């Protein structure tokens, strides 16, 4: 056991800079993917709630499809299967795109249910004072829905962060790819994968705690009313 840690003491100075740089890529990947998921997810949610039948059907279909396909498959389709169409993407871009459009389906559901929890009467009251539907969304619905949606959105962020690990399978230079490289160079898979796990944990855990704290506060606010 002690021997196990001694290896970290000896090797960490060599591993750390590379792993740290990889963690940077992981965060970047997470940021871009989540950004895409938020923007695209909001569009999907609005399309789904819109009165235009075609639009809402298409959005619903997209969400259903994406929820039935593994992230990894979406990633492979974007990275490998699109190449013959003449589009080549770097692994990082393909990774962000794949994770983003996949997560968007889940984000859309979070937005939709958040928007739907705002009572219809509140929207009508806004229309009655002369707000346009867009103003109603902006000033009445979204400010309230945001508070409700925040915990599930943060949880989604954690999921995206964890999912970036599979981008190593399309050779995006993030934590798991670097850990794999180093593991085969140093023949220390246990050490490197535990290190990788610890790094993910260090990034994901605070977010999880935040989501839970926020959800608890929301719950208390409700009951206190």
């Amino acid at each position, binding site marked *: 056991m002690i021997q196990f840690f001694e290896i970290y003491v000896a090797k960490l100075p060599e591993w750390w800079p590379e792993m740290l740089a990889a963690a940077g890529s992981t965060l970047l990947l997470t940021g871009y993917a989540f950004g895409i998921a938020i923007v695209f997810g909001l569009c999907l949610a609005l399309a789904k709630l819109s009165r235009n039948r075609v639009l809402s059907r298409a959005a619903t279909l997209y969400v*259903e499809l994406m*929820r*039935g396909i593994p992230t990894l498959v979406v990633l492979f*389709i974007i990275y490998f299967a699109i190449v013959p169409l003449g589009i080549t993407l770097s692994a990082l871009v393909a990774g962000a795109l794949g994770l983003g459009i996949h997560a968007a389906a889940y984000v859309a559901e979070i937005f939709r249910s958040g928007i739907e929890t705002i009572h219809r009467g509140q929207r009508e009251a806004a229309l009655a004072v002369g707000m346009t539907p867009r103003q109603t969304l902006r000033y009445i619905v979204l400010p309230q829905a945001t508070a409700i949606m925040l915990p599930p959105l943060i949880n989604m962020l954690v999921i995206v962060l964890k999912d970036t690990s599979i981008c190593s399978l399309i050779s995006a230079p993030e934590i*798991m790819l670097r*850990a794999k490289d180093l593991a085969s160079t140093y023949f220390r898979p*246990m050490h490197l*994968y535990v290190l990788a796990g610890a790094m993910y*944990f260090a990034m994901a855990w605070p977010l999880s705690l935040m989501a839970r704290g926020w959800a608890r506060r929301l719950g208390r606010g409700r009951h206190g009313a």
Partner: protein
Amino acid sequence: MFAAVLLGGAVVSVWIMLGAFSVAVVVGLFMALVASTRNRPLRFLVTCYVEVFRNVPALTQLFIIYFGLAQIGLRLQPIPAAIIGLGLGGGALLTEVFRAGIEALHHGQREAALAVGMTPLMAVRHIILPQAWRIVLPPLGNYSMSLLKETSVASAIAAPEIMFYARQLVTRTFETPLIYSMTAFLYLAMCLPIGRLVARLERGSRSWQ
């Protein structure tokens, strides 16, 4: 011809899913029960387990179990490694699900059942289990669906499931778009029925509330 190969993989995917699901249910139930005791150190250990496994990617967990354990002399086959790895991750999720189920039972329901003259066993059978079941069922259904999709990650440790064969076929035939769309379709065909079922169960339990 491709389809036959992929279907062979699908059988393995389903086996991995069923195996991991069983592991997750057993571990989750056990941990949830431990967490409902008064023993503080034990509860702390359960919390550690849940937090660690919930905040580390499945791929990392699989690599630790498959490649990492081999380094210290414990060599697992890919399929058992996938079942254990995914199962332990799912166990952390289900610990929270079951804990919510157990907590919902503490609302005087048992006392009320005893008060109308039921035996404790009858209370469990007629009052507590039916309610806990409805609370736990929808998340269990959702979990089974996401688990099925997660088995695709097991291809990274060479477990011969759908994704593994898909990647093999691609390197042999270069029919990349065709094979990956067939793969996507195959997962869809397996997931959608589960999703429908989950939605129906959810609707059922909501109308009851």
